[in-house]
C-alpha cells in the first residue's frame, strides 16, 4: 500500500496566496508548526524552520500531498517519529487550509497537543522472594571478606519515594575504589584504532611528513617521520540498578561509577529502579557526596521496585542510538530480580547486544556460592550477555578490567 498517498490523500484546492497578510499568516503557521514539532522532540530548530519556509515557496500550498512530503523531508529525521509528525501535520494542515480561501470565517480550532504521557501504571507485583546469601562486605569495605549471613532486602514492586543517607562514608573505602578504577582505566586505554597519529616512536613511516621534512636536504631522505596507530578508548555506558533489593550494594557501586566517570572520561551513567534516569551530569566534577545527595533527592523511585526490562527498553529507545555503537561497552549492574515481563527484558537485552561492542552484566548476587541465576529475568537475559560476573566487592570490580576490550 502506498504509504504516502495513504497518509496524505490528495486534496487540491483552487486558491493562491492573494495578499501579503495571507503570506504572513502562512509564515506564522509554519513557524508554530516547527515549534510544536520541537516540543514533541523532533529535530526542529531555526534551520529547519527556514528550510520549511523555503519549501513552502517551492510547492503548491494547496496540494496537501506535496506540502506533506515537503515538510516531512525537512522535519523528519528518523522513521520512528513519523506518527508524531503525521499527527502534528494534520493539525497544521487544518490551520493553513483556510488561508487561501477567499472569505473565510472559518475559525480554526486551535489544538493543543498534549503528550499522552499517561502515568505509567505499576504492574502489580506477585510473590515476593526471600533470598539468603553470603553478604558482601558490610560498611567497612575491606578488600577481601567473609561476611556474615544476612537476609537481603526484599525487592518490591512498589515505587517508593525515599531518600538515602549517604553520610556514612569512609575515606579508605574511597581510595580503594579509586585504585580499582585506575587499573580498569589503564586497561581501557590500550585499544588501537585504525587511525594514525604522528609519533616519534611509531612503527609506520609517515610518507607525507618525511617528504616535507627532507626537502631541506634536497630530497635525500635523512630523517624519517613516523606515525603510529591512535589509541582508541572504548566508550563505557553504565546502567546501575538502585532498586530496593540492591540497597546493600548500590552506594558502593555508585561510588565506583563516580570514580570511573572522573578517571576514564567517556563514561555515561544511568540509574534505574522502575524507571530510568540519566545521571552522567550529576557525577561530573562533583564531590561524590554531593553527587549522591543530589541523586537521592532527584531520582524519584530510589529504592523502589525493579523493572529492568522496562528501564532497558527506555534506554534502547531514548539513548542507545546516541550513546552506543560497536566501540561501546555496556555495563549493567543489577541483581536481575525483575518484577516486569521477562520477554520485555529479553528483547531489550537482545537489542542492546546487537548494537554494542560488548554487554557486561555484573551481578552482586554472583558473589554468593549458592546463587544460581534462576530468577526469571536473569535467566532470560543471560543469552544476550557477553560477560556475566560478580560485583560484590572491590576484588570483583578490579577483575572487571579483564573484560574491558571490545
Amino acid at each position, binding site marked *: *500500500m*502506498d*504509504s*504516502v*498517498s495513504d497518509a496524505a490523500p490528495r486534496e487540491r484546492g483552487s486558491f493562491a496566496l492573494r495578499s501579503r497578510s495571507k503570506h504572513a499568516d502562512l509564515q506564522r503557521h509554519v513557524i508554530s508548526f516547527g515549534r510544536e514539532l520541537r516540543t514533541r522532540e523532533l*529535530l526542529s*530548530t531555526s*534551520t*529547519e524552520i527556514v*528550510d520549511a519556509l*523555503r*519549501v513552502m515557496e*517551492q*510547492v*503548491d500550498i494547496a*496540494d496537501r*500531498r*506535496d506540502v506533506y*512530503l*515537503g515538510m*516531512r*523531508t*525537512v522535519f*523528519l*529525521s*528518523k*522513521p520512528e517519529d*513519523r506518527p508524531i509528525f503525521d499527527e502534528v501535520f494534520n493539525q497544521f494542515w487544518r490551520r493553513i487550509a483556510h488561508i487561501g480561501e477567499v472569505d473565510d470565517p472559518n475559525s480554526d480550532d486551535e489544538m493543543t497537543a498534549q503528550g499522552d504521557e499517561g502515568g505509567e501504571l505499576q504492574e502489580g507485583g506477585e510473590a515476593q522472594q526471600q533470598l539468603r546469601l553470603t553478604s558482601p562486605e558490610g560498611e567497612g569495605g575491606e578488600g577481601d571478606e567473609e561476611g556474615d549471613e544476612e537476609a537481603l532486602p526484599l525487592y518490591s514492586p512498589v515505587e517508593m519515594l525515599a531518600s538515602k543517607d549517604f553520610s556514612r562514608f569512609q575515606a579508605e573505602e574511597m581510595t580503594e575504589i579509586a585504585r580499582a578504577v585506575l587499573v580498569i582505566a589503564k586497561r581501557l586505554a590500550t585499544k588501537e*584504532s*585504525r*587511525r*594514525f597519529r604522528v609519533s616519534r616512536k611509531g612503527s609506520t613511516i609517515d*610518507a*607525507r611528513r618525511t*617528504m616535507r621534512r627532507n*626537502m*631541506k636536504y*634536497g*630530497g635525500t631522505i635523512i630523517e624519517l617521520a613516523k606515525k603510529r596507530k591512535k589509541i582508541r578508548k572504548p566508550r563505557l555506558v553504565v546502567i546501575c540498578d538502585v532498586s530496593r533489593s540492591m540497597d546493600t550494594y548500590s552506594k558502593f557501586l555508585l561510588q565506583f561509577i563516580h570514580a570511573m566517570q572522573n578517571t576514564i572520561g567517556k563514561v555515561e551513567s544511568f540509574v534505574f529502579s522502575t524507571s530510568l534516569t540519566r545521571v552522567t551530569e550529576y557525577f561530573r566534577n562533583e564531590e561524590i557526596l554531593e553527587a549522591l545527595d543530589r541523586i537521592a533527592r532527584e531520582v524519584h523511585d530510589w529504592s523502589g521496585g525493579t523493572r529492568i526490562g522496562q528501564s532497558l527498553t527506555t534506554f534502547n529507545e531514548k539513548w542507545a*542510538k*546516541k550513546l*552506543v*555503537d*560497536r566501540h561501546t561497552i555496556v555495563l549493567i549492574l543489577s541483581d536481575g530480580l525483575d518484577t516486569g515481563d521477562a520477554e520485555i527484558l529479553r528483547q531489550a537485552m537482545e537489542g542492546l547486544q546487537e*548494537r554494542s561492542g560488548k554487554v557486561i552484566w555484573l551481578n552482586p548476587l554472583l558473589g554468593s556460592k549458592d546463587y544460581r541465576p534462576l530468577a526469571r529475568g536473569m535467566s532470560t537475559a543471560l543469552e544476550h550477555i557477553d560477560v556475566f560476573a560478580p560485583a560484590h566487592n572491590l576484588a570483583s570490580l578490579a577483575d572487571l578490567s579483564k573484560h574491558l576490550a571490545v
Partner: protein
Amino acid sequence: MIEGIGRIQDMMERQSYITDRAIATTAFLAMELRKPVLIEGQAGVGKTEIAKVLSAALDTELIRLQCYEGLDVNTALYEWNYPKQMLRIKIDEGAGASADEQEAHIFSDEFLLKRPLLRAISAKEKSPVLLIDEVDRADEEFEAFLLEVLSDFQVTIPELGTIQSQHRPYVVLTSNRTRELSDALKRRCLYLWIDYPTFDKELRIITTKVPNINERLARQVAAFMQVIRNVKLNKTPGVAETLDWAMSMMALHQEHLDPEAVRETLGAFIKDRDDVSKLRGKPLDVMLGSMNGAEEEDLNEWIQSVTQRLEREVASR
C-alpha cells in the same frame, strides 16, 4: 512548481528507476534548496541507486565515497603522490634547482592525488553528484570533518592554499542506521526514509528491470516478496534480491512459481542460513500452496492471511 516534482519523477523513471512522489519531492527540493539529502532505509531498498540515477538524469559525474570504519581524511580528501615526488627529485638532482623551487614543484597540482571529496569540490565543468555511501560506518570524527566540508564546500591544503568549489556538488548521503548520526549532520540535510516497496511499486520495478517477464510470474514474485518481508528474518530480502530471483526464474524458463523451482532458487533471495532453514519445508509449502489465491483474491487480504499462516508455521518450529 508542481511540474518540477513531476519532471524529476519522469526524469528518474526515464533512467528505469521506479520512484514515487516522496522520493521525487525530496530530490526536487534538494536541487532547489541546494541541500544535501540524507537517505536512510533497510539494506536493499535502492538508496545508493538514487544518486546514480540522479547523476545519469542530470548527465553529470557521479563521485562516490564509500565509508568504512577508520576512513580518514587522507583517503577521503587528498594525498600526495610520494613515489612520484621521489622520482621527480631524483630526476632533477643535477638540475641545480634550489630546495625552495623543488619544493614548490613537487607540491603542485601535478603530484596531488585527489580523493572523492576533493574531486567533488574541484569539479570544473558542472556540479557533480557526490554520493557519500553508508556514512554510519565512518566514525564520529570523520562525521565532524564531513560536516565542515558540507557547510563550506571548500578545503585548505597547506601546500596549495584554499580550494573553493565552483560548481557545488549535489550531495547524497546514505545510512543503514547502524548508529544514529549526529543532530548537526541531520540538520544540514534533507531527510528521506525509504521503505520496502509496495506491491504495485515492486511489480513495476520487476517489469521494468526484467524485460520479457510474463505478467503472471511478475505478480507472483511481487506478492511472494510482500509476504516474505512480513516474516521476521535475519536478512530481509531487498529489491536487488527480488530482481535476482525473478531473473533466475526466467533463466529456468518458469512461467509461474512452481514449488520445485522455488526450492531450487531459494538462495537467490534468502541469503542467511538460519533463514533458509526457517523457511524450508512446510512454511514454504504453505506459501506456495496458496499462490493461486494471490491472483484471485483481494491482494491485501491474501497477503495478510498467508503471512499469518506462515508466522504460525515458523513459530511452531
